[in-house]
């Protein structure tokens, strides 16, 4: 079907479909659509976190977090987010949860702890939020 046929049939164009998908995803409160725009925002942070899949790198990170982060070109702001283990700050700055979680794992911080901090909740409060779904 040519694009003029699509228009004639009243179907959304490809551009419109993409925009609608993104508009919806971006309208979700507390959600950071990890698309190309966001993937470019803090590539060094994600790359540093990805490197923590190697045991030797984890040791090097633990030995000197600042020096390790500098190797990957993290901004001063991003370094501080790492030192503070500020999960929501990292996500807002362009961190992807799957890479950021590798940093959490270094300190045996569970996804529930990460979720609680992102929600500004205590662990107990966050677990209550999770459990609230059980009855639905």
């Amino acid at each position, binding site marked *: 079907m040519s694009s003029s046929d699509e228009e004639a049939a009243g179907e959304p164009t490809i551009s419109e479909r993409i925009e609608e998908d993104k508009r919806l995803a971006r309208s979700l409160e*507390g959600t*950071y659509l990890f*698309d190309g725009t966001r993937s470019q925002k803090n590539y060094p942070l994600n790359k540093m976190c990805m490197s923590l899949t190697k045991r030797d790198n984890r040791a090097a990170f633990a030995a000197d977090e600042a020096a390790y982060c500098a190797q990957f070109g993290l901004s001063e702001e991003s370094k501080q987010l790492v030192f503070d283990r500020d999960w929501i700050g990292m996500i807002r700055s362009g961190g*992807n949860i799957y*890479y950021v979680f*590798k940093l959490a794992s270094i300190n045996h911080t569970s996804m*529930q702890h*990460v979720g609680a901090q992102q929600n500004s909740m205590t662990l107990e409060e966050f677990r209550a939020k999770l459990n609230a779904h*059980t009855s639905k």
Partner: protein
Amino acid sequence: MAEIIAAVTTSHVPSIGIAMDSGITQDPYWKPLFDGYLPAKEFVKELKPDVTIVIYNDHGLEVFLDRVPTFGIGAAAQYLSGDEGWGPRPIPPFQGDPDLSWHLIEHLVAQEFDMTMFQEMEVDHGFTVPMSVFFGGPAGEIEEWPTRVIPITVNTIQFPLPMPLRCFKLGQAIRKAVDAYPKDTRVLIMGTGGMSHQLQGERSGFMKPDFDRMFLDKMVTDPMALTKIPNGVFMKEAGHEGAELIMWLVARGAMNMDIEEVYQHYHVSASLTAAGLACYRNK
């Protein structure tokens, strides 16, 4: 001739793997989930698949943001559990089936699915946890995997994700490829990921059982309706990470249009994830 004998689907959650590996599956928190897995283990045991094709997404083990294949396939003789940041899972190596892998590659590319090919590949929890859930003992214990495996990866990390209909069609193409494989081979297809969950942002902790139950119903009765759900809507209804459900549609596409659900288990929650599991046979 080769044949797809069944499809199974399940959520994949790191903490389910940790629960198995640390022997706490009978703790009160985990027991209802693991008890719910028992009939599914019986189902795959009786099936005796020669090969299991596992549809999953890599979560930052083999794939970083420097290069993100939308669809990938393993062609290795062996796959090891990799270190995602908390050490590899203590499980046996998986044996591959390079001959079938290359057959799939040839036939998928010929059907215009341009797969990224991996001859060396480690597998993460997205792959290993479902394998333990279905093939492990009651507590996930395993000495040797009773099936060869072929990993197929789908990008669900960096948007744009492949469209749900494309995932379904990949399943259809896998089915055609398997049907054309000359060696007698019993193939199980396993779709993993989901169900509703969100890990990132202030919306983390989001789950939506109503959506998940609708999805489970339509997997059997109207999969084409699921293929028409835009990924933005998957994110709204199932969460930013719950969009992984598109991988269930790959497994669904490899089955007949008419299928029978042999077993279903739905449990809220495993950590932050609504954990769903189902077993399907062709009618």
